Structures are given as C-alpha cells and as structure tokens.
C-alpha cells in the first residue's frame, strides 16, 4: 500500500475537500487583485490536486480486499443535540471513489476549458471561486458519511448552481433562471429533508452505515415507513436531477456560461439524485413500490424530455433536454434495481455530455455568442476539431458501439428488459430512438448542410484556441474508451461497485451483475439497441441532409402537436398559472386585505374606540380653569352630601 508521509492516502481524504475549498477561498478573497492567469492556475491546480489525490485514494482502495473497501474518517461532531448526532465525517467506498474521480476529473477538464472560455470576462475570479466551491460541495456530497452532511453538499451544489446560472446577473433572464433553479430545488429538498427526519425518527441515527445495517432488520419489506422514506428522498432527487415534474429549471439553467452547463447541469450536479438513490439502494430495495415509482418517473422523463428535444432550436437547450432524458435513463436503471448500470451510465454520460456541452460552447464561442441552430450550419469546415469531437460525443449518446454511451445505455435497456417490464423497456427504447434522432438533428443542423450564418458571424467564425480544444480531445477519448470499464464480459465496474450494493454484506440482492442473463440474450439486446440508434440517425439524415424541407412540412402537417412540443408542452406556463401566480395573488390578498385590513384593522379599531371615547369626554374639557374649579366644588359638595346621608 502506498504511503504518504506515513499515512495512507485514504487518511488524506479530507484534502480532496480541502484543495477545492482552499482554491475557492483564495480566489474569492484575493482574486480581485490577482491577474487572470494566476486565478486560473489556482482554480485548476486546486481541482487537479483533488483529482490526483482521488486517484491515489482509488488505488489505495483497490489494494484492499473487496469486502473491506469501506473507509470512514470522522472529523468532529457537527450537530449534536440529545440523541441526534450528525458527524462531519467522510466515507470512502467504491461508489464514492468512482464519484470523486469522475467529479474531480471532469471538473478539472472543465476548469481548464473555462480558463480559455471565460478569458474575456470581467468576473473571472468570481467564476473560479464559484466553480471551485461547486467542486467542493459536490465532493462533499459524495463523500459524506451521513445524510445531513450529504445535505450540505446537496444544498451547496444548488447554491453554486444558482450563483453560476445567474453569473451574468445583469441579464434578467439569467438571474431569474438562477432563482428558479434554487427554488425548484428547494421544493425537492423539502422532501429530502423530511426524508432525513423520518430516517432519524425511525433509526435514531442518520449515519449511512448504521442506517443501512439496521434497515433490513428494522423495516419490513415494502412497509409504509420505508416506502415513505424512499419516496421522500426521491422527491429530493427529482428536484436535483431535474425529473418530471420538477425538471423545468434545467433548460432555463442554460443561461449560465457553457462550461458551467457542462459541469453542473450535465456531468455532475444533476446526477446527484442518481448517486443518492444508489447510495440508499438498501432502502430502495426494501421498497418495491418506490422502485416502481423511480423507474416510471425515470422512463417517462426520458421519453418526455426527448420529445421536447425534438423541436428545440437552441443548441444548449437541446442538450439540456437530452440531459434530462439521460438522467431519466439512469433512474430507470435504478428503478429496476440495476443500480450499477445507473452509475455506469452516470459516468459515461458525464464524459460524453460534458464533451457535447463543451463542444457546443466552442461553437458558441466561435460564433460570438450565437446559440440558435437555425443560424448555424456548415461549421464543419470552419471548426474541424470541434466537429470531430462533437461527432464522437453524438455517437456516444446515440449509443453506437464502441462508444461509451452504447455500453451503458445498452446495459440499462437490457436490465430494464430482464428485471423490469416490457413497458419500461419500451419507454427507454423509444427514448433512445428519439435521442439518436434529435442529437443527429443537432449535429446536422450545426455542422453540416449549408451555412445559415449571418454575414457578420460568417466573417468572424473561427476554430477555438488550444486551451479549449485539448479538453475536448481528452473528453472525446474518454467518450470512446470510457465504456470499456463496464463491458459486460470484463465488467470491471460491476465487480468494483458490487460491495456497495445491498449494504456490502448482503448477499441476497444481486449487485446488478449480469450472470443470470445468457450471452445470446445479451448480444441480441445489443443488436436491437444499436439498430434503434441507427434508425434514429437514419431518420435524422433523411430529414436534415437528404431532404431539408421535410421538417417544415411535417411541422405544418402536425401543426398542433408541433406547437405543443415546440413550446415544451406549456409546462412552464401551466406551473405559472397554477402555482406561481395564485401564490403571489394569495400573498397579495393576505397582505393587503388580511394583514392590513382585517388584523391591523381590528387593532386600529380598538384604538379608534378609545379615541372616540376621548372625543366624547373632551367636550367636558372646556379649558377654563374656573370650570374645572367648579367641578372640584361639585365634588366637594357631593362628598359632604354623601357623608351626611351615610352618617
């Protein structure tokens, strides 16, 4: 086992968190005075160090026997009140190691990319402060050893997302989108926090290990409590991972800088929900009903978001809806009990989706901020490297072998078929078809065909600098090779993650491994999913290369459906009309009428009564002293009369 100054790398796990937060603090406090390169170097170094350390931790962990691959380190008691205790402690196990490597790795690449992308921005240091803070929070989320500490990371990433979406805060749409993201996430957190409380009340602890150990003995399979716990936690996941019905914030989140979209809203943060479900797989396995809910929501979201993606024209929004859809896939996997497939898809997705976003960023950068695909086209010749990497990403997401997405998506579909129902598989398969279609639609509209650029943009367009292209190349490489970690025949990720599933010691739940599936079945499923992908690509080819007028015709023919889809099923409008506006209106009524008129009116009415009484009594106050003296005399006489009568 490699040692570092006498202690194993596992002991140094705290530094994985320390580097990013230190980078954030340094940039935040001093960034204004530092030059941009220095800020960039600090930001990237912090994450780079975290990644290197994560890697060593991973190696360390590999050295341990699979069943001992859990390492916990407690730092201090964060909140302790009576029997309630939340310890600031970290937990390293295969799942969190995979996550920290993914987060810090992809994070590092995107940091480097950002140095180039944000070069001309005034708030450079602010950007890196937020980005480092984000990485810190995300790492905390995945490393935490109890629910509440995880919640810090959970909310922390939400905060950073808020700050980074609203990074260009002078744009009203940006600041509103940030706010929307935070508030919608809060709705999810509402469930999450109730879930944590229910866990505490049930188990009297919120420590992962203890809860998961106690769960099978404590809880009845499919009992009410465990179903409630898992559903409440899943509400949190719905919010964070942008699933139906709380997905609306994610497309709006594209107002942020593109690297942010890549890091937060594609690769890492939005997958936190999936991570959480996998982390709590012990509980979910105990609650079949919740699992069904997870699978159905995942499947429906995958399909629903994909249909919206068909008709969008903003390059980033298409990617955003595809993210929603892909996360739906992950939940679908979790919902059928294939947790590892979910994580596998999470990892590969983070590679190719980050690649796609960064590629889109490169395009936007090259076009000077243009995001509308209808004003692009034919960029292939202007930006060859970007095109190639983008193509790789698109192939990966479409699920063409041997790209990363193929393996993971195939595994998800296979699991859905074998463990879930045909319906769920159907949802997933149809969504996969649509995904292939709209992703290639995007590719064709952007890079192929004839140019629709404005004159100004055309003169301007250029390939991006190396600092942007290198990250693209790295990610492209990962998108090609990333899938092999989970290639079924040599399923490294499966065996690595297996101890995490079922609480590590539970043999009853099979860790999503595929031994029970025959090889023939497996390969036929592979064939089917590849066929689906190719079909999608072919349709896109027909519509956008071969016959560019076709889309318009179809749109005309199915005008109603097209309008609905184009307007994203009016979900935002429906929410506005049913939730937002009534709330604001009610509040106005509460303020103007209930508060001012009724409650305060009542108070003032009491005061008014006293005042009126005074007004009446005032008449007796003539202001003439002798008049007052008269009443003194009157009083005197009355006293004497009384005393005479009484005595």
């Amino acid at each position, binding site marked *: 086992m490699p040692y570092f100054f006498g202690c194993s790398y596992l002991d140094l796990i705290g530094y994985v968190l320390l580097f990013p937060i230190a980078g954030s603090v340094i940039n935040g406090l001093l960034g204004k005075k530092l030059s941009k390169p220095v800020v960039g170097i600090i930001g990237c170094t912090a994450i780079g160090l975290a990644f290197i350390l994560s890697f060593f931790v991973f190696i360390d962990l590999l050295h341990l026997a699979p069943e001992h691959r859990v390492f916990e380190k407690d730092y201090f008691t964060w909140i302790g009140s009576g*029997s309630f205790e939340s310890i600031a402690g970290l937990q390293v196990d295969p799942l969190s190691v995979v996550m920290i490597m993914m987060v810090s790795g992809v994070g590092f690449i995107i940091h480097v990319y950002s140095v180039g992308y944000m070069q001309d921005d005034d708030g450079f240091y602010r950007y890196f402060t937020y980005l480092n803070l984000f990485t810190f929070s995300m790492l905390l989320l995945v490393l935490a050893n109890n629910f509440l500490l995880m919640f810090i990371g959970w909310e922390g990433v939400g905060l950073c997302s808020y700050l980074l979406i609203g990074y260009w805060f002078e744009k009203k749409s940006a*600041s509103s989108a940030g706010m929307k993201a935070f508030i919608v996430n*809060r709705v999810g957190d509402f469930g999450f926090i109730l879930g944590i409380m229910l866990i505490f009340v049930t188990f009297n602890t919120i420590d992962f290990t203890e809860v998961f150990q106690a769960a099978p003995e404590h809880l009845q399979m499919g009992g009410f409590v465990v179903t409630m716990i898992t559903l409440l936690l899943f509400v949190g996941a719905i919010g964070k991972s942008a699933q139906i019905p709380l997905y609306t914030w994610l497309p709006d989140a594209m107002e942020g800088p593109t690297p942010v979209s890549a890091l937060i809203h594609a690769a890492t943060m939005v997958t936190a929900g999936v991570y959480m479900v996998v982390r709590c797989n012990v509980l979910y396995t105990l609650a079949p009903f919740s699992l069904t809910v997870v699978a159905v929501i995942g499947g429906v979201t995958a399909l629903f978001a994909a249909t919206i993606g068909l008709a969008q024209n903003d390059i980033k929004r298409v990617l955003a809806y595809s993210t929603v859809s892909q996360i739906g896939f992950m939940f679908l996997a979790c919902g059928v009990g294939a947790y590892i497939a979910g994580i596998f898809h999470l990892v590969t997705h983070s590679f190719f989706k980050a690649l796609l976003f960064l590629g889109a960023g490169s395009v936007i950068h090259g076009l000077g901020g243009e995001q509308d695909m209808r004003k692009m086209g034919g960029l292939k010749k202007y930006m060859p490297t970007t095109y190639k990497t983008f193509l790789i990403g698109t192939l990966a997401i479409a699920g063409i072998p041997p790209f990363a997405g193929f393996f993971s998506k195939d595994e998800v579909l296979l699991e859905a078929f074998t463990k879930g129902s045909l319906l769920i598989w159907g949802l997933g398969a149809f969504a996969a078809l649509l995904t292939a279609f709209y992703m290639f639609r995007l590719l064709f509209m952007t890079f192929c065909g004839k140019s629709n650029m404005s004159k100004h943009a055309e003169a301007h367009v250029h390939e991006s600098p190396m600092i942007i292209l290198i990250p693209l190349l790295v990610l492209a490489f990962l998108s090609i090779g990333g899938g092999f970690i989970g290639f079924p025949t040599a399923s490294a990720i499966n065996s690595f993650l297996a101890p995490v599933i079922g609480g590590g010691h539970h043999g009853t739940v099979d860790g999503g491994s595929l031994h029970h599936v025959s090889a023939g079945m497996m390969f036929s499923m592979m064939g089917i999913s590849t066929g689906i992908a190719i079909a999608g690509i072919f349709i896109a080819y027909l519509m956008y290369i071969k016959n560019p007028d076709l889309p318009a015709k179809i749109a005309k023919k199915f005008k109603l459906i097209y309008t609905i889809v184009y307007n994203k099923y009016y979900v935002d409008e429906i929410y506005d009309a049913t939730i937002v506006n009534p709330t604001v209106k009610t509040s106005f009524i509460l303020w103007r009428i209930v508060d001012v008129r009724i409650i305060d009116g009542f108070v003032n009415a009491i005061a008014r009564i006293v005042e009126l009484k005074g007004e009446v009594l005032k008449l007796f106050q003539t202001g003439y002293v002798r008049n007052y003296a008269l009443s003194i005399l009157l009083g005197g006489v009355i006293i004497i009369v009384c005393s005479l009568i009484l005595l």
Partner: protein
Amino acid sequence: MNLPILTIATFLPLFGAIWLLFVNGEKQEKIKRIALVIAIGDFIISLPLFFKFKLNTSEFQFVENIPWIKEFGISYHIGIDGISLFLFLLTSFLSLICILASWNITDRIKEYMIAMLILQTGMLGVFISLDLFLFYVFWELMLIPMYLIIGVWGGPRRIYATIKFFLFTMAGSVLMLVGIIVIFFMNHKATGEYTFDLLKIYNLDIPMGAQFWLFLAFFFAFAIKVPMFPFHTWLPDAHVEAPTAGSVILAAVLLKMGTYGFVRFSLPLFPYASHQFVPLIAWLAIAGIIYGALVAMVQEDLKKLVAYSSVSHLGFVMLGIFVFNIQGMEGSILQMINHGLSTGALFLIVGMLYERSHTRLIADYGGLAKKMPIFAVFFMVMTLSSIGLPGLNGFVGEFLVLVGVFKSNVVYAVLATTGVILSACYMLWMFQRVMFNKITNPVNRKLKDLNMREWALLLPITILVFWIGIYPKPLLSRMDVSVNHLLTQVDDKYKISLRKINLENDEIAARAERAARAVAAEAEAAARAAEVEAAARAAEAEAAARAAEAEAAERAAEEANSADPMMEED
C-alpha cells in the same frame, strides 16, 4: 471568580449613560467614542461568561442574590444558564454593533446614545433576572428607550409606529404583571413566604385551572413580543420607521424576549397549561411561518420584507419550544441566536442601502451587485443564512427545530417545512430585484461600496454565521444540560398534574358508581320488603369494595403507565 461579572456587564451601559449626561452635547465625536468604548468594554466583560461557563451543571451560574425589598421578598437575584447565556452574549454583541452602526446619526446624538445604553442595560437585565419582580422591571425598562429611539430618530410615520409598538407591548405586559402578582400570592398561600424569587416559585404547584389563566396572561405578553401570528402587526410598522440600529435591536433582541419568556417562565411555571395549549400555539406558529413568508414575498419595502420574514422565522422558534423535546428546544434557542445575527445583519444591510440612496423600495434598486460587489457578498451570505442554507447558521437551528417537531407531530413538521421553500422564494426574489439585473435607477450608478466601518459591522457577524453553521458544538454543548434539566422539570410537573387528574376522574367515576349502585340497591330493597336494611347495607358494602378495587386497579395501571417510557426522550 468573585467578581460580579453579570452585574458589571449589565450595569456598565447604564453607567455609560450617566457619564454621557455630563458630556457636552456638541462634542459628537467624543460622545460616540465614549458610547463605543462602553459597548466594547461591556462585550469584553461578558466574554468570560462564555469561556468560564461550566458545562456539566444545570444550576444557574454566576449567581448573585441580594435582598432588595425585603418586605415583599423582592431580591436582586440574577444568574444565567445555558439558555440565557447566548441571549446575553448576543445582546451585548449586537449592542456594540448597533452603536457602531449609528455613527452617522447627527441629530441629538447624546440623547440617542444614552437611550441606546439604557436600552442595553434593560435588555441584558431581562435575560439574567431570576426574580419575577426584577424581570418585570427590566422588561418595562427596555421599553422606554426603544419607544424614544423609534419616536425621535425614526422615519416619517414614527409617532404612529412607536405608539403602536408601545401600546401593543404594554397591553401584553400589564396582563403579565397581573399574572406575576397572582403567582406571588399563590406562592404565599402555599408556602407562607412572600417571595418573587423564580427558583423558589418553580417549586410551586399551581392548580390546573389557575395555570390556564396564568398561562394566558403570560402568553399575551410574550406572544405579542415574539410576535406570534395574529399579534404581529406592530412589527412591520415599528421596523419600517425605526432607525437602522433600532431595527437591528428590535429584531435581534427584543423579539427574543418573548420566546425567552416562554422558555423561562411559561413552560416551567405552567407545564400543564403549556401542554394543553400546544395545538393552539403550534397552529398559530405554523400559520405565522407560512403567512409571514407569503406576505413577505409581496412586500415592496425592504424593511417590511425582512420584518415579515421575522414573523416567519419566529414561528419556527415557537414551534420548537412547544414540542417539548431536546432537539426542538435547542434548535429554538439556536434559532433565536441565528435570527438575531442574520436578520440583524439584514437590517444593517438595508440601513446601508438607505443611507446611500434614501429609499427602501425594492423597485428603486436593481443591479447593485455591479457597483457594490463586496456589499453583494455580505448581502448574499446573510440572505442565505436567513434561508437556512446548510453550512450557515440558519440551517442548524431550523433543522433541529424541524427534527424536534417531526418527532412529536409529523403534520406540524410537514407544514412547517414548507416554510423552507417559501423563505427561499421571498429572499431570493428580493435579492434578485435589488442586486441583480441592469441598473435602472440612475441614482444607483454612483453608489459606493462598503467603507471600513461597514466592514467592521458585517464581518464579525459573518464570521459568527459561518462558525455556528460549521461548528455549533460549543453552543449546543453549553445548552445541553440546562435544556435537559428544563425539560425534565416540565415533564415531571406535567406528569404529576396528569396523575392528579386521573385520580380525580377515578374518584368521580367511583362516586358515580357508588351512587348508581345505591339507587339500584334501594330499588331492590323497596321491592323486597323483607331484609330491607340488610340487603341495602350488603349492596352498599359491596359497591364500596368494588369501587375501592377499581380505584386501586386504576392507580396501579396509571403507575404502570407512568413508569412506561412516556417520554422516550433520551
């Protein structure tokens, strides 16, 4: 440890006020410096309370007990425990901040500082009094300077606001005075001793019917101060009209007196009534949480918004107090501190904006983050703290309260948790409208960022916000024993009351049974002309025996019950 730290810390500001009387009112700088020195000194003096506080005893510490008016058993009895310690420190800390925040006041600065210092003595006194009479004196003492601060240095509608504030508070506290006097005489009746000493009165077993009325009398005083939902309308007016420091003190300390009063007086003195009133208070608190948040959302005036948010936050505190478990109580106490810090800071922030552009309307702002980046950072931190972002102070308190509430009643907890969503709505929306977007008001283009003094105001609060959010243990550990003690005390007394009620019920039941049997026996006896007396007597004897048996059985059951883990609480 013979130095009477509490007395010194409490009366140093009063001494400062007297000193200021002899300073020429023209010398503004000198007056401000004297006040500041006094406030700093006071804060430093009160720091040992934190460090020398003994963690393992539920006794009051730093106690001083000197007879004051012997004839009525009034004594100068002061001391702190884990509950009042932090409120005391918060008060001395924020008073210091407030004096520094009032640096720009030019009008009658001498009188202003005198009022501030007297106010400080009053507030500190409230938190340390262990004598009902002394408590009441301080309780009213702090009202007067506050009345003047709003009424003299306030905004355009200050007279309306200050009178409203005064009358509201007074109306409640008069009822409390009546309650105090009633308790005084009850205690005399029970023990034969005339005393206002709280610790002695704690042992008094107040009859349940009286508890009901006394609880109500105290309830009005405290609920108005908190302010709980239907009694809150003085708060927005007072906040809007008060000068910055007045708002800070009002929000940060004065409101806490209400909640502190519930903890210190209502619960231990009237445990039975407190339990009886839980549904009412819980629903009012929940109504406050949601209502305050909704109304805050649509406010157009920054200060009003923060004021209504206080109503919402204090709802959490009230809810936490009345669930009678340790998480709820500790969360509430922590939340009192948190609310003091973050809302206090928010008022400071609004004050800074007001000083710059002389408007508090949200619509007049927008885009300030561009011009005032440092200000924006502080504002953001305080906003997030108020929202209850994990890692900042607000979360710890809020979460503990919610856990406590969840343990006792899930419905309450679910409803209260919606406040978490709503708080994000109104705070972030406000933040967006003030700090983000483009600058629309030309006046705002010339705004300057924070100066050194404003840094000095916000930085310490920010540090505390982070400290409590990340490492609240020093606070929680100091509360632990006292809160536990308080809860057991309440619980024991409550159980005694319950037992008494059960006994009474049994007795009534037994009597009824006996009467019924007697009637039956008589009827029987009338029917059978023979053995008249013998039969009746036998029946009666049997009835009595059976009743006694039933009683014994019930008592046994009751005892078994009470031995049962009624409170599974740690």
